[in-house]
């Protein structure tokens, strides 16, 4: 198995903290001296990342030196491909400025996803081009929300819509890479809430059925202290109508989270990594630091 071209994929429902967990994991690995690349395609994630990493160089020079964040923008990727195919700048410009061309590109099914995957594969393989001296040690994909993530993976297979032309060849290559399950290390992130759990279960089923991919681990983000408490301590909690509303709310929620954790364990066969809801933090970097202490991925090289 080629460890070098593996992509760690943090995926799951929107709002469960994929970007936070990606950054925390990336920072942890980078501060240990490994060269880390985090790839995202979401403008909001890009903003969040740049805000979160402010002041990193002062706080952790080692991590700052080793952490790279790559934001892949569909428009820039398309521009790149046109420029590559038409090396004369004036021609490339004419094509890019033509509304017919722009609109054809816009309606070509799955084209943006297709290019995203091509770049991701390129990055992954750059790791292993020179044996012993990889550009990167760890490649993390902060994936889009479940539905769009699955659509993106399917784009690797959509190359039959591109029967001729350079995309057809690139498509066959992409399909080979992304249908090789050892190239992707899937780590879903979820919160212990009904909608997120339902989506995590559905996504895991779809990943296994359609792509032969199984989660390596499941991150349970922002959990209540009751999730990690011993069952007998939870059973001994006494709540009645005299208890304060805050306590009733917090205990009911904790007990519901425990039940959802069991529910997902029954359907998604992967070790669970609970991360508590962080109580207090001083700035984003401190938050990421605290989160990172809970992520121990035995699977990460």
């Amino acid at each position, binding site marked *: 198995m080629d460890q070098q071209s593996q992509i760690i994929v943090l995926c799951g429902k929107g709002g469960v903290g994929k970007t936070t967990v990606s950054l925390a994991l990336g920072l942890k690995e980078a501060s240990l001296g490994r060269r880390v690349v985090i790839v995202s395609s979401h403008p909001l994630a890009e903003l969040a990342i740049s805000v979160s990493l402010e002041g990193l160089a002062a706080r952790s020079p080692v991590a700052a030196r080793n952490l790279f964040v790559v934001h892949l923008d569909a428009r820039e990727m398309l521009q790149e491909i046109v420029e590559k195919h038409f090396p004369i700048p004036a021609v490339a410009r004419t094509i890019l400025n033509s509304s017919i061309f722009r609109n054809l590109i816009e309606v070509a*099914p799955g084209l943006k996803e297709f290019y995203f995957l091509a770049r991701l594969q390129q990055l992954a393989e750059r790791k292993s081009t020179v044996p012993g001296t990889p550009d990167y040690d760890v490649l993390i994909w902060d994936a889009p929300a479940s*539905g769009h993530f699955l659509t993106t993976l399917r784009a690797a297979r959509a190359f039959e819509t591109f029967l001729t032309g350079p*995309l057809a060849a690139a498509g066959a290559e992409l399909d080979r890479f992304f249908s090789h399950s050892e190239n992707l290390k899937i780590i879903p992130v979820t919160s212990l809430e009904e909608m997120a759990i339902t989506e995590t279960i559905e996504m895991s089923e779809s990943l296994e059925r359609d792509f032969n991919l199984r989660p390596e681990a499941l991150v349970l983000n922002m959990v209540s202290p009751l999730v990690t408490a011993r069952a007998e301590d939870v059973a001994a909690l006494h709540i009645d109508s005299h208890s304060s509303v*805050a*306590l009733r709310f*917090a*205990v009911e929620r904790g007990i519901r989270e425990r039940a959802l954790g069991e529910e997902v364990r029954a359907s998604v066969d992967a070790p669970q990594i609970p991360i508590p809801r962080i109580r207090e933090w001083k700035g984003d970097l401190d938050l990421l630091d605290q989160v990172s202490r809970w992520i121990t991925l035995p699977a990460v090289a």
Partner: protein
Amino acid sequence: MDHTSGGGMKIIVYLGTGGVGKTSVAAATALAMARQGVKAMVLTTDPSLRLRTALRLEDGLAEQRVPLDGDCPGELWAGLLDVRATLDEAVRLYAKPASVDRILNHQIYGTIANSLSGMQELMAVERIDQLRLRGFDHLVIDTAPSRHAFEILDKPALFADFSSSKKVKLIGRTYRFVERLGLDTIGRNALDIYSRAESILGVNLVRQILDFYSIFYPIAEGYGRRAEHTVAMLRDPAITEFRVVTTPQKAIRDAGFFSDALTERNYSIGALCVNRAWLHPMPDHIPAGLAGEVLDWYRSVSDAHREAVWQLREAYGDRVREIQVFAELEQDVDGVGALERLARQMHVDAPLQAV
């Protein structure tokens, strides 16, 4: 703009990232409107199973009146924003009878309807028009989460532009004509850009896209006109209000992002809704043991939420019409009762009085 064209229509568009409870807030808003005596429709993209049950939305049903307890002067309706169903309806309504089947069975139609990002938003615009024709005048729209949310504003123009392009029409027709005559090369020399597109996308795909557009054209053309009309309504602040739903943790960041993105498009945020805030008062006595630990956990989260709301008011208080804060419900929304609890936290009169 001319008010008669909107027919007294009110539209509230909720934007927000995933996981903030946008769908519940949208549904509760429509419910609060119904309680005030109007016929309100919430259009939602991807409700949870519980919310689907709460709204009695069944698969295959485009929309449904939601039965309400007690004496409600208005009506609550809920509709699924089903891309395929909406597009199919448009094809049946606007295509020439002879080409309906050809369009519905075309490969490009399938991929466009199912996989094109932003199609959901495009179809929201189409659906607003269909609902307007059927007498719904208070619409609450729950946009899809993620980065596509703005395509409700961007895509219609793009699509209309593409479909009304004379060149596309010409290319579509010429291509089929040239193919039939077998004059492949002559046709291509004349269509420079088109052949360059072919060299990147492949002959087959471009051919399919153009073939599709040549039969889809009448619908796209009509779509362009309707989209123009609907986009004008979305642009009219007397008709439409944009609201951003967020959670305390993400409030400042989301407000900044959506405010910038809307400003860039010459829209403005009407209201910021901070959902799922933990605001229960803390008891005087903190018990020992695990209960104490749980309460301490609650307090720290709750303090952070209050702090975030305070920061949001400082930064955006005078830039939006209103900042609303909704307490997190004890359970996921599992029935109209839970929606009522959320709706009771809302003041929906403001946008209605704004006219």
